[in-house]
């Protein structure tokens, strides 16, 4: 396919999807193609620099930010299956860089999107293969960066409704942090675990079988805590659910 009118999307894979859960990035690829985009994956990409940036190690983050700009600035759109990485590029690169690099960062910020908001707000995806079976009840955790830096709130819910015919079972305070916070979860594990427990209790109260969200960082944290506490809830990335990839092991679960 070489359709010049198709939106040209560069997929920002995110390091967590690359290393921990490739199915999230493949799901994103399928969804974008289904929406009529021509998707490329720059294979030189690694990490957006967020770990260093949020740790205050700006000197470590700057070269990674510049690399990412060079790799993605020629794209028509940059899409990431993560509000946090998209937020890093769109919201924080301009803050981190100066001079001409700042201008380039601002230009990149303009065309950088979180996956679900790109699918609803730009390409208006509204058809998908119907799921062969009805989905179990699903609850959605609003990741902080997606919600507050990228304005993602209704988009994933709308997609779950239109593509999967499932209404989100809303948990209490879905907009409160799960306790991941990058290096925070390793620096202050006790507080992080308490926050994850609060989130998991809110999710359990909805009686949903699946806890989903748009950021793998939060989901790894919640799945890891759920496994530690022996909770039954499955944790999956929303891109996997939207693309119908529901049959492999959930995050943190083994091959049965």
């Amino acid at each position, binding site marked *: 396919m070489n359709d010049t009118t198709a939106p040209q999307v560069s997929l920002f894979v995110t390091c967590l*999807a690359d290393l921990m859960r*490739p199915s999230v990035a493949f799901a994103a690829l399928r969804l974008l193609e289904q929406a009529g985009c021509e998707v490329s994956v720059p294979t030189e990409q*690694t990490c957006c620099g967020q770990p260093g940036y*949020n740790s205050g190690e700006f000197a470590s983050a700057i070269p990674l930010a510049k690399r990412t700009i060079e790799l993605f600035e020629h794209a028509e759109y940059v899409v990431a299956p993560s509000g946090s990485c998209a937020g890093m590029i769109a919201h924080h690169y301009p803050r981190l860089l100066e001079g001409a690099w700042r201008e380039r960062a601002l230009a990149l910020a303009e065309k950088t999107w979180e996956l679900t908001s790109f699918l609803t707000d730009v390409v208006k995806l509204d058809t998908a293969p119907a799921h062969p079976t009805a989905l179990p009840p699903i609850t959605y955790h609003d990741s902080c960066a997606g919600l507050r830096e990228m304005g993602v709130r209704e988009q994933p819910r709308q997609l779950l409704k239109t593509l999967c015919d499932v209404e989100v079972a809303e948990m209490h305070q879905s907009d409160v942090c799960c306790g991941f916070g990058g290096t925070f*979860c390793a620096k202050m594990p*006790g507080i992080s675990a*308490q926050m994850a427990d609060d989130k998991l209790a809110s999710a359990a109260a909805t009686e949903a079988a699946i806890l989903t969200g748009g950021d793998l960082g939060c989901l790894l944290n919640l*799945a890891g805590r759920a496994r530690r506490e022996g909770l039954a809830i499955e944790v999956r990335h929303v891109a996997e659910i939207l693309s119908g990839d529901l049959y492999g092991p959930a995050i943190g679960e083994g091959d049965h």
Partner: protein
Amino acid sequence: MENHSELFYALSHDALSDGPEVKRRAAMAQFLPLMRDMAMDEFGAFEELRQHVKRVRQHTLDNLDYYLARFELEATNNGNQVHFASDGAELNSIVLDICQQHNARRVAKGKSMVTEETGLNHYLERGGLDVVETDLGEYIVQQAGETPSHIVGPALHKSRESIRDLFLEKHALGERELNEPADIVAEARRVLRETFLTADVGIIGANALVADTGYSMLVTNEGNGDLCANLPSVLIVCTTLDRLLPRGEDASAMQRLLVRSATGQPQTCYTSFYSGPRREDDSDGPLETHIVLLDNERTDILASDYREVLQCIRCGACMNHCPIFAAVGGHSYGSVYPGPVGSVLTPLLSSLEQAEALPNACTSCGRCAEVCPADIPLPDLLRDLRHDLSEQKVTPRRWRFGMRLHAFVAARPGLYRALTNLGFGLLARLGRKKGSFQHLPLAGGWTSARDFPAPQGKTFMAQYQARQAIDE
């Protein structure tokens, strides 16, 4: 200032071990944001007023010299004596001097975080004075020998039962039950009335200082501030110089945001403007009034990259919405100002070394900045403090080294792919059956609290490039 912020790790650990307390904090963390959201929805003009107040605050701070001079002139013309204190010790000694000049024995205090910052109570007590806090929450923590755990609700950390037991122990009032909140409040009121009527000096804080009239504004729900200000013959207002606003209408605009942000009320029970001592035709009021303006690092903060923190109007909304504050409570921060704004202020008021934990006690979730009525970019300021911690090598060497190593590898895609394919490929094979690891070398911070989910299989890039090769 009593500051134990270096104990954050230990204090928060203890706070998390107290089951019933954890539950109570979680309940408050649901209730307070709900109140605030309801008030803001009804109000409807949050964003416009917030931007207005932010502009006013920034303008005042940009021209602080002018407004300070104007305030001093107007307040003096109204008959006040205006004092400047460069640090907490100076404020304390100015206040003690005034008390001693009047042979004061008893001081009635309205709520004031600034005097918590300077440790005024203990200083006056050592000077032989009887100091009584009259805000109910402050009174409770004073009786318990504690410090406030929240800047708006000082006794938010205490259960009704513990307050009942405290009053039964501290007040020699004979047999009674105190099972109902109303009975507890009535008892405090009875005890405090005696204080108001017998105090020689009243000390209050100020939510705002109005430059063009020389008035100070105080917002309370209990009216105790007015009684402290009007019944004793001497009034001392203690506040910091960043409380200044140009005009009365600016104070009014700020107050509309302050109250909704703090407690979710459209209005508090009492908002008072104090002009100065009793005039000839006044029926009551103090005979002599003093205003003590504390700097204590504020002019340094004003000249630094952290000046936006001075826009704070002390509503406590960032605390009410911070999930970390909700988990560990205000006392864990070990400092006068807890929560997100405190985590910015405390290192600036004390030292980065001592307060090292506080800028890190944040997930950058941004909920505090979302609700902040002064639009302070708290997560950005906390991240900048982490940058300072790293630059000044306060951050442990293993973290700094780890981040540099990560950046070194991530900037070299060939090396990055080789290492990640090897490492994560191995982890995926080892973890396939169980799906996650209970222990993992080098990931102790993670696995101390949660399992480490196993990688799914080969990395995305390895799989993707293999597919591309087949397609070609």
